[in-house]
């Protein structure tokens, strides 16, 4: 429902695609690819939490989910650091 006319007045040209979505990479496919990678990592994390729950049911000591999620994210996205 975003209204293209309600974009900032001083937007430099080329910030958005024809549908008003922000573009960052020279190849627009890269913008979509970043989204795919993040969605995929989220799906993997959901499975990781399910696995943790099963392991805890079988006697594993409970873990701090927030801390483990941070370790997971830091590990998976390490290649984008220091760009």
């Amino acid at each position: 429902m975003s209204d293209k006319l309600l974009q900032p007045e001083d937007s430099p040209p080329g910030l958005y695609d024809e549908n008003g979505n922000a573009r960052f990479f020279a190849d627009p496919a890269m913008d979509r690819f970043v989204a795919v990678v993040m969605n995929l990592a989220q799906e993997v994390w959901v499975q990781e939490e399910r696995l943790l729950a099963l392991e805890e049911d079988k006697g594993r000591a409970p873990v701090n989910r927030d801390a483990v999620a941070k370790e997971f994210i830091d590990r998976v996205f390490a290649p984008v650091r220091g760009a």
Partner: protein
Amino acid sequence: MTVELQHPMKADATAEEVARGRFVSGMRGLILNDLAADMRDGYEKRAEPAFRKEHGRAPETSREAHQALRGDPAFNIYSAMRVQAQKMVWASVADGVARESDRLAAEAANAPGSLALNPDLEVPRNVHAVDVHLMPGSYVRGGDGLEAGAVYDRGLAIFSMGLMGANLDDIGLSMANYIKLRFPDFAPKRILDTGCTIGHNTLPWKLAYPDAEVIAIDAAPGPLAYGAARARMQDQDVHFEQMLADDLKFDDNSMDVVWSSMFLHELSKKQRAKVLSEAYRVLKPGGLMVHMELPPNGEMSAFDGFYLDWDSYYNNEPYYKGFRDENPPEICAKAGFAEEDFFQFVVPSIGIYGEDAVAKAATGDAQEAVGQETVGRLADGVMWFGFGAWKR
């Protein structure tokens, strides 16, 4: 860090939904802390020197810093990931809100708050014509039902990474406590929150001044309906009413405080000027207008200014930069406030730094600079910027 909301309309989420929310919150932590630091490095090592080489000087404005950063790899990855994480915030809660719509309606019916909607009010374009914050349907999602408020409340719990507290009221708590401590003799009897959304930063004013009548207004009906029930569930006596802040239906000289949080930047320049003049009109002599907002570009470096202005271009906040380019003392003066009655301040987040830090800021023992990196930036160590004026 994820937080659990503090009222009966909180999500009864599946384990999968909890995991999705935790992931998004963690991603935002990576982006807004680590990738933001990488982007600053990229600016200093590549973007700024390249701009300097081309123009013979460093970028001097937010717009020029933006121009310098476009195409830099650190800017690209930060921005693309931040946009996607923002979309994932709302996607992570949408299914749960849809599944629980009947329960939410029943909970709200059990806690009928004080609410007055105006079906004849024309919701302004800035509220409905753009998906503000990339939230599908914006503030009018679901009409006058509970959907928009529930998505906003649950989404904000993920978005805020714990930095706004479990009740998402850190801004209101920090600001109301600051005002109470800085002006101990001020005892408002009637407080108005303009652009309140779901009232999460309204309730702290009732806590700070329990004897005051507190009224919260917004243009969008759904979040008001949700906010009224939410307030009642938390035993807070606040009246919610659908009304435009630039067309207040209150008498002249009828309010002691007119407050807003993160609201002025969502208005056009023309609307904003009217909002401030309306605040002046309804305030009693001796009354206080106070706004929590993003700090102005004029107080920040080009890079730090653009860091905040990023939202204007990429988070569907079309008026954000225009507001930040304005000068708060000037717009208050144009609304009728005397220049010498203007003040601005920085409040350390009460949830992060504690009540003592707020007290030290209020009593002048610890003044924080407006232009520093942590002011207005939702990341580790956030502090809040505010400005206001007294009406003579």
